């Protein structure tokens, strides 16, 4: 049975902070297909289009019939744990620091055998298990065998927690607590066991409904934070940056219209200043401390979340400049992900469809409830995924974009 996590003792400030190390980073191109699916929370394997043989490890030709028509197809992961060991020694520093480690070989019902991590609640081999694909601290997919059914405190398992960004007992900064989404995120984090939630607010003279109640919650500390003001960002980072384990950037400036319907660039600049440059200012000020704490004990720094929009994938012309600012933020977040990777910090991008808030008043349903966005963010942290597309509109646009981005562009231009 997994021991529930406890709040650790206060960190001894005299001791050197353990520097982040990474598990092995190298993967071949074909093997990255496993990573691409795991980034969205899916366990996928190549399946031969000609003879239906399921392949593992990833490869370039079917092991059975030599066909090169291999399609990545989602798997349920059921299998039998057939052999196992407890590793007490490793060649790599990252694992030397984390032994003992339970690993084994699972014979998947789908056919192949897989080397896997083993959750502590799985019985000894031979045993039925469910295999899931998760991202390790290097941002690559690894497989982990989970027990047949969920067990109490399952996410607290040491080996599983290394593969997630679970907010339980961690300290989180939510950069904008004045919006309904921000407040819903705060509630969801507290429900998930977060220890402290700092909640940012800008323009203190503008009261926002619900903000005072949020600020009074015992886990919450309100901090004045204006991401358009470099001095403000620097000051807050100086105060709390070294304690933040998860940063959730939900600051957003949202207006409608594209190019022709609003003269001048001031609104577009305001969107860019928060949605794009705000991200950049936060990353420059909070990034270094976050990276240095990637291996800092049980509640190490672990994730950065960006609230983007599915409009980042393909411009929605009636909110054309907003879309462009989100696209800019998306591109920059990929840069951020690459820069955070050496420290093992997960960058999570959330691409909701239109949220049920004032600037989407004229859009037809379904619109996403703020609570649904919050739930998706916390789920992404608990699952350790990188890319989330919450809600039916986001899922629909994603499918069309992947199928043929040009066709989607034409469809959106007609709406």
């Amino acid at each position: 049975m997994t021991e529930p996590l406890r709040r650790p003792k206060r960190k001894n400030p005299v001791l050197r902070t353990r520097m982040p190390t990474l598990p092995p980073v190298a993967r071949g191109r074909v093997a990255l297909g496993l990573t691409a699916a795991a980034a969205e929370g899916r366990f996928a394997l190549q399946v031969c289009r000609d003879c239906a043989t399921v392949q593992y490890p990833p490869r370039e030709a079917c092991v059975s019939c030599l066909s090169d028509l291999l399609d990545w197809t989602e798997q349920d992961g059921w299998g039998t744990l057939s052999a196992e060991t407890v590793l007490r020694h490793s060649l790599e520093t990252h694992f030397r620091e984390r032994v003992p480690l339970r690993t084994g070989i699972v014979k998947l019902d789908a056919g192949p055998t897989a080397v896997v991590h083993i959750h502590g609640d799985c019985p000894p081999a031979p045993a039925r298990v469910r295999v899931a694909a998760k991202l390790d601290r290097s941002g690559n997919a690894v497989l982990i065998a989970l027990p047949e059914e969920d067990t109490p405190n399952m996410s607290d398992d040491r080996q599983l927690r290394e593969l997630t960004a679970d907010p339980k007992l961690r300290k989180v900064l939510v950069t904008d607590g004045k919006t309904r989404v921000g407040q819903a995120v705060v509630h969801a984090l507290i429900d998930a066991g977060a220890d402290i939630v700092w909640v940012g607010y800008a323009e203190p003279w503008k009261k926002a409904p619900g903000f005072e109640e949020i600020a009074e919650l015992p886990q919450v500390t309100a901090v004045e934070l204006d991401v358009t003001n470099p001095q403000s960002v620097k000051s807050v980072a100086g105060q709390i940056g070294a304690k933040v384990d998860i940063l959730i950037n939900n600051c957003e400036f949202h207006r409608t219209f594209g190019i022709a319907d609003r003269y001048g660039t001031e609104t577009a600049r305001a969107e860019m200043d928060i949605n794009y440059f705000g991200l950049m200012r936060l990353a420059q000020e909070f990034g270094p401390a976050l990276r240095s704490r990637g291996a800092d004990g049980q509640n190490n720094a672990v994730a950065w979340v960006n609230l983007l929009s599915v409009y980042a994938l393909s411009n929605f012309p009636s909110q054309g400049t907003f879309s462009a600012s989100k696209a800019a933020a998306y591109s920059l977040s990929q840069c951020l992900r690459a820069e955070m990777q050496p420290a093992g910090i997960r960058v999570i991008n959330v691409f909701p469809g239109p949220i049920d808030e004032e600037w989407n008043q004229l859009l037809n349903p379904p619109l996403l409830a703020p609570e649904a966005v919050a739930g998706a963010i916390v789920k992404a942290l608990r699952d350790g995924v990188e890319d989330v597309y919450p809600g039916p509109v986001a899922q629909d646009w994603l499918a069309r974009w992947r199928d043929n981005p040009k066709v989607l562009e034409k469809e959106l231009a007609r709406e």
Partner: protein
Amino acid sequence: MTRRRQGYDDIVVTTPVTVPYVRFSTKGAHWFIGRVVASLVNDAGIEKAAIDGLSLTSMSLLPDTAVGVTQHLGLTPRWLDHIPMGGVSGIVALRRAARAVQAGDAEIVACVAGDTNQIDSFRQGSANFSQFTRDAVYPYGAGGPNASFAFLTDYYMRTYGAKREDFGKLCVAQRTNALSFPYALFKTPLTLDGYMNARPIADPIHLYDCVMPCAGGEGFLVMHRTRAEALDLPYATILGTIERHNAFGEDVIQFRGGWAVDKDELYDMAGVAPDDVDFIETYDDYPVINVLQFEDLGFCGKGEGPAFIRANTFTNDGSFPTNTSGGQLSVGQAGAAGGLLGTVEGIRQLTGQALGVPVPEPKVGLVCGFGMINYDRGLCSGAVLFGAGKGTA
């Protein structure tokens, strides 16, 4: 209609050479290879130019291959082979070289292995061992082969009731055999208690189940019997050989090696039976693989390994002499040279040139190879039955 394989009449192996093993060396692989070739030339009493075939195996030679070595050492062979097959390399080198000499493509083939070992060599070799290892094994704890063989050992113990004491008996016996072997890196006796109480590495594998990676070299010559006699060299004969790669892919966990596919052909070719074998040099990167070799080469049935171990003794004066110079477990694993260690020791025993305790008057020796955990199982297997040809005068 399957054609019958040709025998190896009149093709012989001579000149067993070992370059002393050291744990770490500042010399490169080319140095160890150079020492092997120099010793072969010197011990055989031939000119360097008489070597017209070269078979090379090495894991620390990059960016060179056998090609670079020809210019490095000033050789001009008309037959050249580079074998990247780990622990079966000696068997495969012998098979290739013997056919070359038999066909007249070469007169004297030097089979050479040499590897250096530096502080971080093993980790780097393990991280980049194969595509499947890089993509699907190393990221899970970077335990190297220790984790992979722990899986095999765990499965074997649970399925066939083997105990750690059974493996310990083999390790203790091999250490006894090593105590008189001048090149062994382990020089103190090992007791069963010492084996059982050693540091755990990857359950159920403990410290003395693991070889020590080191630097060193091994080599031998392959030539026609008439050439060996003209040079007055002791030689061993080749009674039969087998080789198989990626056998039994459908087995969930490896519990048998490719030898099980071709074992009957081996004994058939040699005209001998397992009972005729006087000693065995198994590939012993971990003791569980010794047991697979006992079973798959016909000394007992599948799963009867534990009973076989309990009923026999494995020192050079025992009922089933095994790894007569101590094996890799007690001598050390000098990279690819570990794949020739058994062949070189087998030649020594059969030609009366044993450096340690000799097996009493052996007539037939079995040398096995195994290797290349490409993903989750050793893909390569091979074996040679050697005969006592002509000993030292």
